[in-house]
């Protein structure tokens, strides 16, 4: 096979897999470009990528969880916890590196709690994470009694406002985390185990996969991703807000599902989730560019999610 046909075959494969959802993204971009002169510009796309970073990273974690047939509703609260942990580390006089390490560890710990409760106590993850969503949200408010905490560490705040090689650092972080998650999911044994377990739990157990351990690991990934989202969010806002990330879990779920992740488990990719997150970001930004009043934005956003998922399901059904 020549190189040309190989790349064509790969392209066709990609279009088959993501065609429906990619088409939705392109259609949205075309509509917004035609209605707002400022939409299609490098400045605005950098803008969109920065705005979507927090959701995209949280959605990478959510994809793992949904892939397993579980759900994690606590990530919005973990996003807020992460910012507050960082702020408190600085309040105790720690430097950037230890603060970052503690914040990420906190995310892993909260994820571990979700995973352990789900796997070991055999509770539905929906209930577990509804409960921890409240618990973590309460924890956020303890250090400051609900008040926001300022973050004045310059390295921390630089993440959200500085650039590297002409691109905002925040975008580099999304790219790196995307690649890590993508490779981990599609090229490693760990990823294959996740697909297998999500698709058929019994088979996974019989083939010797330690399902409990896998589940806990995956909830920890979700916690870590949410914590990194929280770092980015708090760096963008120069502060840890106790209501940060409120209801972001729903955007993350929407991004993953838009990207073709099946809520039944076993199906989903990071590429799809990234496109799903971009759709959400493009929609938020594009409607602002078009000056659509806020309440209409909510309605349109819901409708677009419905239509995009329907297009995707339909195109997959047509192939099957």
């Amino acid at each position, binding site marked *: 096979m020549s190189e040309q046909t190989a*790349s*064509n075959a790969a*392209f066709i494969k990609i279009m088959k897999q993501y065609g429906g959802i990619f088409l939705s993204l392109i259609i949205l971009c075309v509509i917004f*470009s*035609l209605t*707002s*002169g*400022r939409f*299609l*510009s*490098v*400045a*605005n796309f950098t*803008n969109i990528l*920065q*705005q979507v970073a*927090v959701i995209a990273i949280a959605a990478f974690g959510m994809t793992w969880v949904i892939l397993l047939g579980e759900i994690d509703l606590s990530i919005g609260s973990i996003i807020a916890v992460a910012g507050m942990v960082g702020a408190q580390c600085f309040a105790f006089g720690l430097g950037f590196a230890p603060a970052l390490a503690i914040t990420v560890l906190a995310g892993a710990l909260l994820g571990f709690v979700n995973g352990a409760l789900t796997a070991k106590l055999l509770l539905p993850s929906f209930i577990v994470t509804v409960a921890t969503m409240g618990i973590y949200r309460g924890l956020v408010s303890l250090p400051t*009694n*609900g*008040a*926001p905490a*300022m973050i004045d560490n310059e390295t921390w705040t630089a993440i*959200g*406002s500085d650039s590297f090689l002409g691109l905002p650092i925040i975008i580099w972080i999304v790219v790196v985390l995307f690649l890590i998650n993508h490779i981990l999911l599609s090229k490693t044994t760990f990823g294959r185990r996740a697909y297998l377990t999500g698709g058929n739990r019994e088979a996974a157990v019989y083939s010797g996969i330690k399902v409990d351990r896998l589940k806990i690991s995956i909830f920890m990934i979700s916690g870590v991703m949410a914590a990194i989202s929280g770092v980015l*969010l708090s760096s*963008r*806002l*120069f*502060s840890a*807000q*106790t*209501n*940060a990330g*409120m209801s972001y879990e729903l955007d993350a779920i929407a991004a993953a599902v838009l990207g073709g992740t099946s809520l039944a488990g076993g199906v989903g990719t990071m590429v799809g989730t990234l496109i799903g997150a971009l759709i959400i970001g493009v929609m*938020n*930004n594009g409607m*602002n*560019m078009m*000056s659509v*009043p*806020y*309440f209409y934005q909510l309605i349109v956003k819901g409708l677009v999610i419905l239509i995009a998922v329907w297009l995707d399901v339909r195109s997959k059904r047509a192939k099957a």
Partner: protein
Amino acid sequence: MTFTLKSLIASAAFTLAATHAFADGIGASLLTQQHPFYIELADAMKAEAKDKNVALEVAIANQDLNKQLADVEDFIVKGVDVIVISPVDSQGVRAAINKAEKAGIKVITVDVPAADAKVTSHIGTDNYTGGVQAGELMAKLLDNKGKVAIIDYPTVQSVVNRVDCFKKAIGEHKDIEIVAQQTGITRAEALAAAQNMLQANPDITGIFGFGDDAALAAAVAVKAAGLDGQVKVIGFDGMEEARKAVDSNPVMAAVIQQFPDQMGKQAVDTAVKVIAGETVPEEQPIVPGVYTKK
């Protein structure tokens, strides 16, 4: 195939990127649109913008600082002349203000001031005076003695200011004691807070609610506890519902009335002056009124 598709997208991108439509005028990012205060503020801004014949776009942050930042970023990309912000959080709004400043766009804040950033002008209720007014009035209603509870919202600086000044004014009267202070942001939370405080201190004689919702909830709690004759409630904001309650419900003694319509009008007027290159005062406090039963 890949090549043609790529070049097609690229050429489309260039053509469309070349057609800039500049959005002149004012971009306003408001805290919420689910509170009568902000609805009145937005309506006054729209009316004044129409009067002054200046373009005005309103984005709603829905109490999410991240959304507010994104809205302001979008205004910057659109190229508005002036940005008016009613901050979600007085400290966290710094990021949005810095970004606008870097892009050379002047910022006016309304209602909540920014804590760590310099803006071209701030228009807001004089919460210090308002807090003192509430405290003085409470002392007068209680004949300078009794026990007072406060329902607050500690993350909003303007509320902190009015509560602090209320306490300061109460502090001048040594026979009045502040026995409880709890947070009650929404009406439901405020109701629970008021009930808890009345449960713990049944001898409370006055409650100060940081806003209308808090005060109205407190009045409900007082009635439910059967303390109608004993407790006086003072609110802050003075929207229509609370003013009506003051007129009809003896528990609801008074409300400090803010004037969002004046604020909205002044914000647009100030923005218009800024666009015209005129200098504007850095602080434009709007003194609230005291609303008691007609």
